[in-house]
């Protein structure tokens, strides 16, 4: 491993984050300054990137590698941020830098005087940073960090017009399905640890024969890991059956829709497949599955694109169609073609989305001169029936959205709504008692009580899941929901502590993150309660209209609580997982569900209190459907 990256390049990966921090502190109305910092950040980064490309080409190496920092290192757990630089990262970042810088210039004019000008450029930089982390990630942990940040920036940009109902609703919808992908990725990474018993970086993955041998020795485990990666990739790249989030994500300004959902964000799933290809490409069945997903998607999505009568959803589905084909190319091992296809699709869809408002005058003109009344082709009744069936199915987007809701979210809502007793004082007392017992057990930890410990581990993780499920369905006071969420995290921490000997330091990292964020959040909620009176979660309140600062701090607290990278909780989550063994199916399941729903639940609280149409009607307010 002698091909290291030059130092200046490491620096330039971090520059977008620096830029993001700077823009956070700039005044909202100073558009010139905000834009100036953003574009210089991107330019500086690109400079470093180009220099590194030169260095890489001269070095004649296939890839460059660098470990930036070990965030945690102990015999049982290590977490490091690594970078990796090869053809795939170069193509992804070239396309990204190109499109983001152009869209940034475009947006300077386009977003002029928008009250969210600052938010837009903030988020754009954070998005750029996350793309950097993902594209140059040298190990799975780093990808995960970038992946999480990318998800949150999506949430913020879809919900950019936060005073309307639909953007907020759809932002929650998209982040929910994203979260499922995130946890699949986390599980995949966790299983990888157990497969290799060490943290593997991509350089090793691409080059080490021993690692590959391990894969063959544990084919079924490797298969599960591959499936988890495929789910993650399919979600991010809107493949069937997860495709319906993409058209619904087109809520922000046209420019952000163009780079996020027309091009960059939506191709990140493909990136994950390319990056993990050394892992799975020798498992034929996995190749077949990826190809099958791609083929099904491209066939179905092209039918749906065919019937779209709105310009942005049409572009969304045509983009999905092409990404389906890219999946096939990846499955066939045609890496270079897939990369070219990605670039072409990203450019074309970005352009089409950016000019999408022109479609009205262009096509009406076209119609004015070239209109031919549609001739109903004489069809045999059987064929016509099939055509009609396909038509209706495509209009309904093949019911994917409904099915997703019915399978993924409705059961939890149903379960949650039956758990109302959990907020009862008696239940509260019982839970506290149980928790005390658990703490005692951790305290007297000795080898004799193994079976009791395991039983309690499961009970606590199950309770943690129940609590979070309840918080997901609760419509009452936000403060009790917040406490439910916090409690569920405490139960998860307790259950893991009982599962295995854990260093106190590890659990402390997790708990400081949780408790700190929880306190801050609770403080915000009490303040809001004092100002506004009603903070029940049965509708959207839109309190950000009057409480901008409070909303910002509550968002920070929320991100801390859900384990957003940059908060200690994030490290903690990964760490906690390392103490679960792959054989522990139920523990894994309860904990994963807990981690999926905590983010959805927390962001739901944030969205319902601060976003959506303002409940006070002394000023102009959007209709729900607008």
């Amino acid at each position, binding site marked *: 491993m002698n091909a290291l990256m030059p130092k200046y390049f490491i620096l330039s990966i971090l520059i977008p984050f620096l830029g993001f921090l700077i823009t956070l502190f700039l005044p909202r109305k100073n*558009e010139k300054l905000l834009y100036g910092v953003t574009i210089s950040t991107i330019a500086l980064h690109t400079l470093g990137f180009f220099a590194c490309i030169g260095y890489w080409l001269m070095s004649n190496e296939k890839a460059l590698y660098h470990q930036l920092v070990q965030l945690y290192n102990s015999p049982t757990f290590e977490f490091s941020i690594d970078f990796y630089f090869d053809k795939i990262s170069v193509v992804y970042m070239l396309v990204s830098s*190109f499109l983001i810088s152009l869209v940034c210039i475009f947006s300077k*004019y*386009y977003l*002029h*005087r928008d009250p969210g000008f600052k938010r837009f450029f903030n988020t754009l930089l954070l998005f750029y940073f996350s793309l950097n982390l993902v594209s140059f990630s040298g190990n799975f942990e780093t990808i995960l960090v970038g992946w999480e940040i990318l998800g949150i920036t999506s949430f913020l940009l879809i919900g950019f*017009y936060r005073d309307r109902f639909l*953007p907020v609703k759809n932002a929650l919808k998209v982040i929910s399905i994203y979260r499922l992908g995130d946890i699949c990725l986390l599980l995949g990474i966790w299983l990888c640890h157990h497969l290799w018993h060490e943290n593997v970086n991509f350089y090793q993955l691409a080059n080490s024969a021993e690692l590959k041998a391990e894969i063959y020795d544990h084919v079924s485990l490797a298969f599960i890991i591959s499936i988890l990666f495929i789910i993650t990739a399919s979600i991010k790249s809107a493949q069937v059956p997860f495709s319906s989030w993409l058209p*619904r994500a*087109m*809520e922000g*300004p*046209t420019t952000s829709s163009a780079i996020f959902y027309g091009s960059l964000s939506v191709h990140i799933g493909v990136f994950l497949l390319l990056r993990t290809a050394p892992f799975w490409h020798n498992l034929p069945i996995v190749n077949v599955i990826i190809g099958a997903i791609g083929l099904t998607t491209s066939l179905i999505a092209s039918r749906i*694109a*065919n*019937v779209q*009568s*709105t*310009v*942005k959803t*049409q572009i*969304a589905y*045509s983009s999905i169609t092409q990404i389906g*084909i890219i999946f096939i190319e990846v499955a066939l091992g045609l890496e270079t073609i897939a990369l070219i*296809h990605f670039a*072409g699709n990203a*450019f*074309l869809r970005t*352009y*089409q989305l*950016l*000019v*999408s*408002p*022109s479609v*009205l*005058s*262009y*096509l*009406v003109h*076209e*119609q*004015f*001169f070239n*209109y031919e009344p549609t001739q109903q082709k004489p069809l045999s009744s059987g064929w016509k029936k*099939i055509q009609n*069936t396909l*038509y*209706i199915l495509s*209009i*309904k987007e093949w019911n994917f959205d409904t099915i997703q809701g019915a399978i993924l979210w409705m059961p939890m809502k149903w379960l949650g709504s039956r758990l109302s007793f959990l907020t009862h004082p008696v239940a509260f007392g019982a839970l506290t008692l149980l928790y005390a017992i658990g703490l005692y057990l951790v305290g007297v930890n000795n080898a004799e009580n193994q079976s009791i410990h395991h039983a309690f581990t499961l009970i606590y993780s199950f309770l943690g899941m129940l609590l979070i499920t309840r918080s997901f369905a609760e419509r009452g006071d936000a403060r009790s929901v917040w406490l439910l969420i916090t409690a569920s995290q405490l139960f998860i921490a307790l259950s893991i502590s009982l599962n295995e000997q854990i260093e106190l330091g590890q659990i402390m990292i997790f708990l400081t993150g949780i408790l700190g964020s929880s306190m801050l959040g609770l403080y915000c909620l009490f303040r809001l309660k004092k100002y506004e009176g009603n903070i029940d979660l049965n509708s959207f309140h839109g309190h950000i209209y009057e409480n901008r600062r409070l909303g910002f701090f509550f968002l920070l607290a929320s991100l801390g609580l859900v384990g957003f990278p940059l908060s200690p909780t994030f490290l903690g989550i990964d760490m906690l997982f390392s103490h679960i063994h792959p054989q522990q199916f139920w523990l894994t399941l309860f904990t994963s569900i807990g981690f999926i729903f905590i983010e959805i639940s927390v962001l739901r609280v944030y969205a319902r209190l601060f976003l959506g149409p303002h409940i*006070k*009607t*002394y*000023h*102009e*307010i959007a*209709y729900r*459907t*607008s």
Partner: protein
Amino acid sequence: MKHSNLTHNKLEAILHDLHHYLPSQTPLKDFIHHNSLHAFQDMKFYEGIFKAAKIFGYQVTLQLNDYRELYKIGRIKETILDRTIIEKKGKENRLPWKNKLINEAYNENNDFRIGYLRANWKKYYQIDLDTLVHPLLFRIICSYLDQGISIQAFPGHPDGFLASVKELEINSFSSFFKTKRAKQLLLSGDHSIESLLKIIVGKEDYFEQYLFDQQFSHRGWSGIVATIERMPHTLLDTKPITLEDWITLELLMEIDALDNKFTEWKPLTHFVQEPPVDMLDDVENTELQEVFKIWQDAFEWSYYDEALAGIQALNNKPENQDKKNSFQAVFCIDERECSLRRHIESVEPDCETYGTPGFFGVEFFFKPEDAKFYEKLCPAPVTPKYLIIESDVKEKRKHELLYANHSHTLIGGYLYTFVLGFWAAVRLIENIFRPKMSPAISNAFAHMQKDSTLTIENKSPNDIENGLQIGFTITEMADRVEGVLRTIGLTQNFAPMVYMVAHGSSSANNPHHGAHDCGACSGRPGSVNARVLSFMANHEKVRLVLKDRGIDIPVTTQFVGGLHDTASDEIDFYDVNVLSYDNYALHLENIQHFDMALNYNAKERSRRFASIDTFKNLTDVREAIRIRSVSLFEPRPELGHGTNSLCIIGRRSLTKGLFLDRRAFMNSYDYTSDPEGNLLAAVLRPIGPVCGGINLEYYFSRVDNYKLGAGTKLPHNVMGLIGVANSSDGDLRPGLPLQMIEVHDPIRLLVIVEHYPDVVLKTIQSQADMYEWYNNEWVHILAVHPDDKQFYFFRNGKFELYRTFLKGVDYLNNLEDVLEISKEMETNYIVDATKENLPVYIIK
């Protein structure tokens, strides 16, 4: 039977009401400005808007705090405020009311009627019916009405919307419905609205409230359906549809959603305790409403008073009498031409300018070469009997590959991404760094080809196409030329050159581009009209007829049509080859004047644009303005009718030299040639619907951009080529987008007529619908007495003397100084935004 008939009649009435109250904006390709609250126009302005607010939850004035802030910064003047209070509340109540206005806390929350009944679905059934029904319902209607976005069209049935859905349901293995009952109801034909409402709502007394709630939960889609039902030909690819069909399908889908969730359910009114609410019931008068009335009046008069003081001061100056006409130019009354006229007069002091509605009195359909349809080129309410056909087009329209449908298909898309994907990247760079005109941009000059041939003269009575006479006969031409010349008062002292300057607007990436074109030409550029009228006025035989009628146009005088692009500030002229040698030489000189005036005009406009440095030299600023009009990234290619607030009907001398900051429509009219006011009626007739419509649409889109406007443009998604919506599942958004109304101060239009008050009164009273605009105070009108130059304001059925508070306005030596130092608004909040609008000045 009798009972059922009664319900049916009642339902007819409800449908009729819905048609009346739903938004009536047509598909965006024809943008016709109109009063957003036209349904309330039979009431007094304030009564009407407060009623609308109570029913539909609209914000209909600025917020109380906005007015207070405007008062603090002096935009609402204290003297005017005091007088308004005294007028409305009496002298003795001035102080207590002033205290209320400035200090008292009111509960401003609006507890409106709409949506109240249907909220009970959530309350009693824990079901969010809208979220379950709307997305698919909107998709179906958008696909059905779609004019050309989708590659595979909705399999239509000639009998209309519901018949098409039915046919599709019969011949398919899949269904829009999840459950059986709704589908069976549709297929059985037993789906009268009454019977469906009985299932869903139950008690008949609630039907009206339920349908209002339901239809106004997506007023955009319902509005377009109702509009298309009334005007099927507003779509080129016509789609038969009725509001009844649309409501029926929605009710069926609601039944479907309820059946899907509950095995058994009772109608809504089974649980509802509150008695039904009469939607259209009168609204009680509140003190807060009185407060708003006073503030709004004071806000309006703070501006009117200043403008009137300016007119008064100007008319006290001795008039310059030497008449030496180098040329005459007739523009549209559009307030965007107000500045261009001022600049031309200052560049070439010997010229004269006029204003008249931009269709120049010639009403016809226009058929461009190879077109499959006709375009109407006259005000929207007029139905022309004439057709003008274009031929000999030399330059064919180019195509834009990146818009092609193939890019969205499986195989085509594959090839496209590989081949054109990279070309798209190049185009993107080009569009950002070197924007230029392209087929994707709506180009005002492309509306009619410059050197094409038009069939203007009717050669034979048999020249008829689809019931329209091709061209005009000599008499018909003479009638129209005479009409225009007489109303603007140009019947003698003809200059050698008379320009008819129409206007249009080029803009990129702008679904609302029609709103920037000429309102008098049904939202299109007026180039054809300018060219047609010039041809008529140049016609020898027409001139003979005109001479008989007392208008003697010298042989040396020639008319030339032109088009001014109000976004790019470019101008072009038509048929200059017919000019005599001498006139052509003059024309070349005049072009220089026009060009210089456009430079100044561009500079004046540039002060509002952040992207342009106003200090740059004239030609650079003008070039920057032009580039703006072809820039894809520019959501404000121009600002349309923003800031419009006055309409001046009189001779140019009334306002010549007055700086009105492009806020006045200006219609030339010479009262001396029309002492009885016979022509005045014709002049005033379109002012209400056209100028009043524009003004009120801007007013309402400004005060409630969320509900009455279209919201910010930035996330807009073009739906079926008929409108815009946010998101994939959003409702259509009629009204004006935020980017068009930011600069607008929401005040009503003040029409200022130079004539005797009794003549004006007689004229506006001559037609009931015209009188309604003024009597109900949706538009104000004021007469300038020609003899003593005093103002008479129309109120409560009569004209009363009005004395301005301000005695005169400031003089300006050099307009440019003011333009360069005036700042762009800090934010688009009204208190910041209004500072961008400059005071009235007299230019020395």
